[in-house]
Structures are given as structure tokens and as C-alpha cells.
């Protein structure tokens, strides 16, 4: 089977896909985008989270065929440019929210979605938004720090930009 989709703004095509393959497998093994991770492949850990038509989704639960014609953004597509990081990415590194980093790509997509929609989240809101993303290393404290930092920076930037 042949698959056409848009990934990180670029049209992509993959051939000879076995119908049982997930979107996660296609991204990782066929399109050379291993950023989204494969910690459970059962929809439980969030490490494979990508934007599917602008909404965060577990790509391990999306059959490749379901992504036909759709728009996917992965962790590789979050930064505004080659040498820049999105504020969420910056904050994760700065706050120490990254240890092994295996949870990080999924958490970044979830956190990106959060700060895009809410630049002043309460801790309870952050916890709720990120409840689907497991991290085994950090105990989540520094992840909370990172999201607070990213939210406040995004808020400031939006204020500066007058939006």
C-alpha cells in the first residue's frame, strides 16, 4: 500500500506499507523520523505523541492508512528553524526536565499544545494535560518547572508581539 501525508509541513510518500503498520512505525522506520518514541505501542505512555491535524494523538494507535492525506507534526517539527528551539524545548533543557529523554518528544508535543492554548496554566491544569505522558526518570517536578517556564515565556512573547 502507498501512503501520502504531510509531515512537518512537507508532503511525504511511503511505499510498500503493510496495512498493520502504525503511523508511529511509518514515521520512525519509513520516513526517517525517529523522534516520536515507542515505549509501549499500546496507547499508555504518550512517548509517541504527535500532532495529527493539529491535535495531539498517540501515533502508535493510529493505523498508517488512517493518516492518509492528513497533516502530522512531530517533535522534529516543533522548532521554528534549524538553529532555534521552541520555548517549550528551551525550557525542558534549562529546567532539567530531560534525563534519559525517552519521554521527552511526546511530552514536548503535549506541553507545546498546552502552552499554545494556555499561557497561564495552574499546576492542576498542567498535571491534567500531561497525565497521559509517562516519565520514569524525573518524578515530574522539573517537567512542571519547565512547563511553567515555557508558559510564562510564551506569555511574555505574545505580550511583546501585542497579540
Amino acid at each position, binding site marked *: 500500500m502507498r501512503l501520502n501525508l504531510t509531515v512537518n509541513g512537507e508532503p511525504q510518500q511511503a511505499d510498500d506499507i503493510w496495512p498493520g503498520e502504525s503511523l508511529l512505525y511509518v514515521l520512525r522506520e519509513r520516513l526517517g523520523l*525517529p523522534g516520536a518514541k515507542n515505549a509501549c505501542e*499500546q496507547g499508555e505512555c504518550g512517548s509517541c505523541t504527535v500532532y495529527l491535524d493539529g491535535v495531539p494523538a498517540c501515533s502508535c494507535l493510529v493505523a498508517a492508512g488512517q493518516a492518509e492525506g492528513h497533516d502530522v507534526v512531530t517533535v522534529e517539527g516543533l522548532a521554528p528553524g534549524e538553529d532555534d528551539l521552541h520555548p517549550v524545548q528551551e525550557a525542558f*533543557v534549562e529546567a532539567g526536565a530531560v534525563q534519559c529523554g*525517552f519521554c521527552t518528544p511526546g511530552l514536548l508535543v503535549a506541553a507545546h499544545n498546552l502552552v499554545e492554548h494556555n499561557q497561564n496554566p495552574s499546576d*492542576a491544569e498542567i498535571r491534567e494535560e500531561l*497525565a497521559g505522558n509517562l516519565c520514569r*526518570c524525573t*518524578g515530574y517536578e522539573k517537567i512542571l518547572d519547565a512547563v511553567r517556564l515555557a508558559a510564562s515565556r510564551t506569555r511574555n512573547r505574545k505580550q511583546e508581539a501585542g497579540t
Partner: protein
Amino acid sequence: MTAPTNLESTTSGGVGDSPQRPDGTRKVKGEFAYSSDLWHDDMLWGATLRSPHPHAGITAIDIGEALATPGVHAVLTHDDVPGVRYYGLDHPDQPVLAIDRVRYQGEPVALVAAEHPEVARRAINKIGVHYQVLEPLTDPRRAAFDASAPRLHEHGNVVRHQPVRVGDVQKARAEADVVVQGEYQIGMQDQAFLGPESGLAVPAEDGGVDLYVATQWMHVDLRQIAPCLGLPEDKVRMTLSGVGGAFGAREDLSMQVHAAMLALHTGRPIKIVYNREESFYGHVHRHPAIMRYEHGATRDGKLVYAKAETILDGGAYTSSTANVVGNAASLGVGPYEVPNVEIDAYGVYTNNPPCGAMRGFGAVQACYAYESQMDKLAAALDMHPLDVRRVNAVSEGSKLATGQLVDTPAPLAEMLRRLKNIPLPDPTDNSDIRNLPGGVSNTTHGEGVRRGVGYGVGLKNICFSEGFDDYSTARVRLEVIGGEPAALVHTAAAEVGQGLVTLQAQIARTELGIERVTIAPADTQIGDAGSSSASRQSYMTGGAVKTACEAVRASLFGRAAARFGLPEEDLSLIGGKLISARAGVLVALADFLGDEVIEEVREYHHRPTTQVDPTTGQGDSHTQLALCVHRAVVDVDVELGLLKVVELSAVQDVGKILNRTSLEGQIHGGTAQGLGLAVMEEIQLSEGKLRNPSFTDYLIPTILDMPPMRLDILENADPHAPYGLRGAGEPSTLSSTPAIAAAIRDATGLSLPRVPVRPDDLTPTS
């Protein structure tokens, strides 16, 4: 010989600073290559057939149909192992592929290499294995004491029995005003790292193999892999690939030999990636334990004796069980002065999954038991739980149960005082149900919810103990690159997420007074660094990097002293400049070095330890000890058995803070795994079979389960360790579990002798 390290004039990004991780940017961009991300032109996928039975004989294996499947390139069994057919961390008793018997469910039996992972998966199901199912031995007590139990290994079912004997417990009983007893149990915990076992094996032209894997200790892997492949060690070249967490689970081999066998056999690169279910079968777990404890104390709370019997279920193969037993024995009474001690710790073989290293390593199990006992004692004496701990607390100059002198600061009483001073959190705001047990499931608005507070104290040995020659190796190269002095640091130490790469660079910056430091990829082209376990890498590889830097500095100062006619002791390196105490700035390091390269390789050993006496358990078996204390606050819905940990506070003595951000991350993460063990994490077994090998059924803490954590970090230097540091990865994992269990007991009045505490335990119906 060289100028003392001046930590006050910190180079930016040096020791004591919290620079960003050198791999951080790649990790947040999705560019960091984990072992499961590796890819090679022409590669095939490997898959593993595993035994469905916990105990069975194998009479025949039929690979014909699997091999005939289109897309399949190889099907291998034990007959195809090129060299030695067994491996093991301490004792080679684990078959590379099962030979005539399987001893646990999930034991590898055969391998397939195919063009697509799904083809490989389907092919393994076409392999016909003829099993003769045997009765599994699953009761560890039976394995320890019942001579009529089936023998799982030639030398019997006991891996190690380690007694500890001090004084005379019999006699001491008469002196005790109160005696408390308990039988405690710990379930089987999984490390549950997120990055599954995986890697790539690439066959090389010289008949050897290049292995890219996620592991904790490449050299111990190498020493097991090469004999199994029938290759000399220099033909098995290992490079560490990105590691998605470890926590002990990567200390034993998983797919390493299998991938290499398939690569050598097919002549093609082989990728193996376990899925989550296979990962549960693919690594050792934390030893479950049954622990009977008895403590006697005087009316004022002073311990007069302790007696303990601990049985650790090692499962089917030896792994590191003997050393886990060593810790459970030597740390069996914790950081308390006890004049009379009788401990018997056993590690046994059963047909349960193999158990080995997990963060806390034998000390976790003991800590849960002795801390539960301390609370019982406090209750029996009507004392505050912190007071009963304080009056018995070790301090510098105390002796452990092993007779070992505590010869470095051990300020437990002070730590307990500080813990007590941390303000308690406010009562729960019931108006927001997210704060309550059950959360948005809307199970309560505060009715039936009771608050509890509990404490835990843990003592952990740092680095390898019991006479092991523990060392690490580092190569440091100093040269001018692009007009600037730059250092390259090369070790075989595994970065598993803990931040060792950051720390190595910090040490080089501080010792060489420069900013630019690169960490070379870890591989086996350099000497052994030992394992990223036992909280030892800051100490050991940190020590090796420091020592190699000192050697580079000495060589540099030797040349400078000759050139400037100044004594070497006067020289130092600060801010990229060579400085004399008398003459001030002598020269920019870059100018002084010119084209020269200074490179030194050094090994670093910690001070030696001894084995313990096999019958009395006496000996100076540990090189360093570390303390952590926790306070837990919980809310329990006593009607539904739901609970919420409200807050966790910890006081830990780390000797010296090298990187506060990473350090806090270690304490937080260790605390979280302790919380998991206290309230949710358990591999459930029935007749030796795993019932919950998935993240749907094996739960680890989410961000909703973790409370805010307050830390109070002390720096009482250990003069024997580099910079005075104490290993910090594990201690918090010990103390958080008993603190949470104690808080739940405080809220419910239940005795709760077993962790994890399950909802059923909280709503007893009988």
C-alpha cells in the same frame, strides 16, 4: 604535586554549577539516537521466541516451517551458538538460548531474522517446540528450606545465605522492655524504563561484530558476549547508543548476544527492538522479599537487639542475587546502633522471573522492613516516630551491624531534626476534587478522607562492595582547537539519563580551567568504567576524569615550571590562562600549548573493601554510605481504599553538590520509584506466569500520582571521595517507600505489612 583544586574560582559550567546537558538540545529536537532508533542499509529485524512455561523440559525444536517463510533469513537455536552456551553477570548459568530445559516463562528459545519485524514475529510462531511441562517451584520459602523441592540448579536452590551475628540476641531479649515483631513483604517491582531493550549488530569484515546497544556496563557485557560468540574480545566492538533509562534492568544482557549471532550468521546488520510486553520478560526485576523482623528495646527507646530473616526470590538464574543478599544482610538493621544482631538473608532460585539489579539493590527491601519496625516500636513505646529513630541513629564513629566503623559524617539525627522542621502542607482544599483521592473520578468531596503522616530513613552503600576491585578509566586530551584550549573526555561509562556526561564536562572545566569540553562517545576502545549502578559513576568515573585531568595538568605544569622558572606548586589554570600565585597571569593556555597535545589515561579505584565473613557477616564491606530521610503526607479515602500522596519531603546528605539540577532530578526520580513501590507497582505472578506485562496493567506513577517534593540537601563531605561527594542516585528510593506506607498506616490505623499497598488492603472486609 599539582595545585589544589580551587572550587571557589569556579569556571562557568564547572563543578557546583548546573550547566545544561550536552545532549539536551538533541534530545528535545528528537535528534538523539536511542538504541531503538538505529538504522542500517540492508538491515534485517531479529525476533525472539520465548518459553510460555515457567518450567519445562525441551525434547525437540522444529524450525523447518519458520525457515521456509518468505522473507525469513535465519532461524537459530542453541545449536547455533558459536561459542560458550551460557552467560551471566556473576555466574554463567543462563543459556543464550534454552538447551533442554526452561526455568522461567519468557526464557529465550530461538531467534529469527527477517525483512520486516512482522514477518519475524509471525515466523517465531511457526517454530515448533516440544515441551515437557514440569511443576514450577514458585514459593521462595520452599526453595530456601524444603529439601524435597525440585532442584533448579546443580548446586541446589540457595544462591547465597548470609548471616550477620553480633553479640548475643538470646541474652539481650531479657534486657528488652518491649519487643515488636512483624512479617513484611515486598512485591516484584519492574524498572520500567521507557526505552525498550534494543540495538543494532553489524557484522564486520574481520569476522567480528560491531554492537550498538543501550546498556549500563559495556565491559561486563563484552566479557559475556565474546565467549558466547567464540570471538576474542577485540573482535566485539561495543558503542553505547542512546539509553532510555536503566535503573538496574540493563545490567544483565538482553538482546546483545542474540543480535550478534544473527548478524554473524546472516552477514547482515540486525536490529532487535523489544516491545513493552517482551521487555517485561527481557530483563531482571527487583527481588520480591519476605522478611521476618523482631526488635527489642528499652523503655526509653534504645534498641537492644534485632533479629531478621529475609528471603529474596532470585527467580530462575543467578544474575546479581548474591550481591543483593549481601546488601540485605549488611544493611539489614539500617542506620541504627544495635548492640546485638542476628540476621539471616537468603537468595533463592525459583521458576519465577529472574531478579537482579534495581535501584536500591537489596537495601530497599531491608529498609521497608526495618522502618516498619521502627514505627511499631514508636507505637509500642508511645514515642514520636522521629524520636525513636533519633535515639538510635548512627553517627560518625558508630559501628554498623557488620562491625564496620562509620568513619565519615553520618548526621542522621540532624537530618531528622531538619525533616521535622519542614512545615506540613495545609489541609486539603476539598472544593477542588482534583486535590482529593480519586481526583476527577469524583469519588468523594472529602467525606471519608483521612490524612496521615509518615517517616522513612534509608541507608545505602555507594559503589561496589565486598572486596570487588571497583574502578573506572578516563582519557583526557587537551589541545588547541580554533584558537581555544579544548578538552576531550573519553570513558566507557554509560550515560543512562542521570547526567554523567554533564558532570564529566563540569569536572574537566574545573580541573583544567577551560570552557570547551567535549565528551567522546562511550565505547570499549578504552578501559572499563564499571557499571552505571550502585550510585557509583559520579564517584568512580568522576574520580577517573578528575585524576586524568590532574595528570594532564601536572604534565602541563612541569613544562611551564621549566619554561618560566617557577615552582609547580605555584601554578594554576583559571579562565584559560596559566597563572602563578606570585607572578600572576603567565600566559594564555592556548599560546602556551601551541600545537602540542597533552593526553593522559588514568584509572581510579576507590579505597578497598573486604568480603564479609560467611558465618558472622563481619567485615568492612562498604566504601561509602549515604543517608536519605523522607516525610510523606497522604490523604486516604478509607471507604473506597483510594489514596493520594499529598507531599513528599526529603533530606539527603550528598557530601558535595556537583550539579544541583541533576542532583535534584535524581532525588525526585528515586522518590517517584519509591512511591511506585509503595502504592502501585507490582509484577503479578500466578504459578510463575506474568499476569500484567504491559503499561495497561503494570502501573507506574503519572504526573497526577506524584506530589510536590521538597528537598533539603546537606553537604557533609566524605574526605575519601572526589570533591567529598556521596553517590546520590539511590538513597531516596529506599526511604520514600516506608515513609508513604507509614503515612497510610497513620491515616487508616491498618497494619499494612505488604507493599505495594493495594486498594483491597485499605478496605479490609474481614
